[in-house]
């Protein structure tokens, strides 16, 4: 029983972090058909900005979190104006933006390497204490992460479902041309979505670095997992991504306990391959009918 509580607790924390990292990716793919390979670097940048704001600038942790989200939203906007906008006018957008964001991600990552050095730094934004359920001690940090993730997810859901900007985002991801004909300024939607995804990445980077440590390359692993979540859920399906993220988090915690840390990623991947062979468009994705 204690083991079960332990697995559920760490699985939910993992799942919550993956979910926040994934929502941004999924939104961007849904509206632009763009796989943002710089997402991992933006996520790390968020962690570092928060660190620098608290340690070097002496800001209050809540302000530091906002500052990180703001800077990463700006980076998202920059990616839109420097890469996505010119590439949208040319052919082969999906392939080209993928390669371009690999390049941008590498630039951001190596700038952080120059700026903060290769050594792991602890994230100062941490909550002390723990709660006890049965015989299991759960750090308050994990509860805090879960709370922030839920608030963010509810916030994004309200944004998408209840506001006109959200309606425009959903319309664009359903059908770009139709949305454009209905007077949606898709260019502005793209910019908004990339900025939002950058801000979400920052928050998830702070959360991830608060239970691990900050290193310039720490974004790669969560990004890959976020991609896996997206792929399992069906690229661009935001709500499916949340469900898949939490399911994969629980699964990862369980495999880590049963098979050891070494095999958890391999097991995840095997599962993804099987899912993709069974449903190539993801669990919650719709099969696209291509007309000639």
């Amino acid at each position: 029983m204690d083991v079960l509580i332990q697995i559920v607790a760490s699985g939910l924390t993992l799942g919550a972090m993956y979910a926040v990292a994934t929502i941004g990716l999924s939104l961007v793919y849904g509206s632009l058909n763009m796989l943002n390979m710089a997402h991992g670097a933006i996520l790390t940048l968020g962690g570092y900005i928060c660190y620098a704001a608290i340690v070097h600038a002496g800001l209050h942790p809540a302000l530091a979190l906002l500052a990180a989200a703001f800077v990463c939203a700006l980076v998202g906007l920059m990616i839109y104006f420097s890469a996505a906008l010119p590439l949208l006018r040319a052919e082969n957008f999906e392939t080209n933006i993928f390669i371009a964001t690999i390049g941008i991600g590498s630039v951001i990552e190596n700038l952080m390497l120059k700026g903060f050095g290769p050594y792991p730094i602890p994230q100062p934004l941490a909550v002390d204490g723990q709660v006890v359920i049965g015989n299991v001690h759960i750090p308050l940090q994990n509860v805090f992460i879960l709370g922030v993730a839920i608030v963010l997810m509810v916030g994004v859901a309200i944004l998408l479902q209840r506001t006109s900007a959200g309606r425009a985002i959903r319309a664009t991801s359903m059908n770009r041309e139709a949305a454009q004909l209905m007077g949606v300024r898709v260019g502005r939607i793209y910019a908004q979505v990339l900025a939002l995804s950058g801000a979400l990445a920052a928050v998830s980077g702070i959360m991830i670095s608060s239970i691990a440590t900050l290193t310039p390359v720490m974004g790669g692993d969560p990004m890959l997992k976020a991609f896996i979540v997206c792929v399992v859920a069906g690229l661009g399906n935001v709500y499916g991504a949340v469900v898949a993220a939490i399911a994969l988090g629980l699964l990862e915690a369980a495999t880590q306990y049963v098979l050891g840390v070494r095999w958890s990623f391999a097991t995840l991947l095997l599962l993804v391959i099987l899912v993709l062979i069974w449903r190539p468009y993801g669990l919650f994705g719709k099969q696209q009918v291509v007309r000639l």
Partner: protein
Amino acid sequence: MTSIRRDILIGLVCLALAVALPFAMPGRYVITQSTLFFIWAIVVVQWNLVLGIGGIFSLAQMALFATGAYATAMLGFYWKVPMLAAIPMAGVITVAVGMLIGLACLRLRGPYVALLTLAIAQVMYVLIVNDTDCFTTTGGCMPLFGGVRGIGQFGDIGLRALFPSKWYVAHYYVGLALLAVAVTISIIVIRGPLGLAFRALRDNPGYAMSRGISRFKYQLWIFAVSAFFTGIAGGFYAIHFRVVGPTVFSFSTLLFLIAMIVIGGLGSIWGPLLGAAVLMLADEGMRELSDYRNIGLGLLLAVFVIAWPNGLNGWLQRSRASRN
């Protein structure tokens, strides 16, 4: 001049220049760096078949390269297979792995393929690096795949014994010969019916399939063809450096190679080779700025994709077209 004749001409000129290089610049550094260039060029030329001609966005090429290198090293280390036999065997093993990856990607499109292949490479890396159980204890504890330190002492093709002081020149010519064969195969594939089928499937899968071109068959073909020489190149890399470690999976190598293809010109015959040469030279030129290497590479990659998506090759073709 037909395009195939032009290809032969360019190929022969390049080959002649490369054959003459060790006589013109006999320095050891130049020769070994050129050998490394040949190895990367082989990988890039084969990757271009999948990426540019097949239009399949696979990032598994470095994983295949690593498969070839590890297969060579492990055949030599555990079964004492002579290297001259181990390298072709590694090529065949790589083909098998490549076809498996091709099979896994068969029903996916575009970005899904990129993610799946990237994840496969990452899993291979994680499994190798995190393995700390001793598989053998001859000469110290070593995990099955060598763990973080990699595998060494698996034999040689004998050129070091044959030319004790000039072995690196011998390796240079071996690399050159392998590259020449790899480029020839890629020209045959691109100009031949196989390439036509690949391009048809890339440009309009629906029409191609309704004309009876089987996606299943040709996707497996393209993975198999490009895997073979990538595996051989991996084997040669293992021989040349005498050790195979998990660094072959590093993201910066992947970045370096994909930048070669993009900067040279995706989908063209000579573009990837040109890109490989340009980037190797640029890398040498900026050696003292090595801290900024990946920043520069990333910037180049992004700028080329955004401003010149057809790469240097496209730029050359445009300037030739405007001259005529």
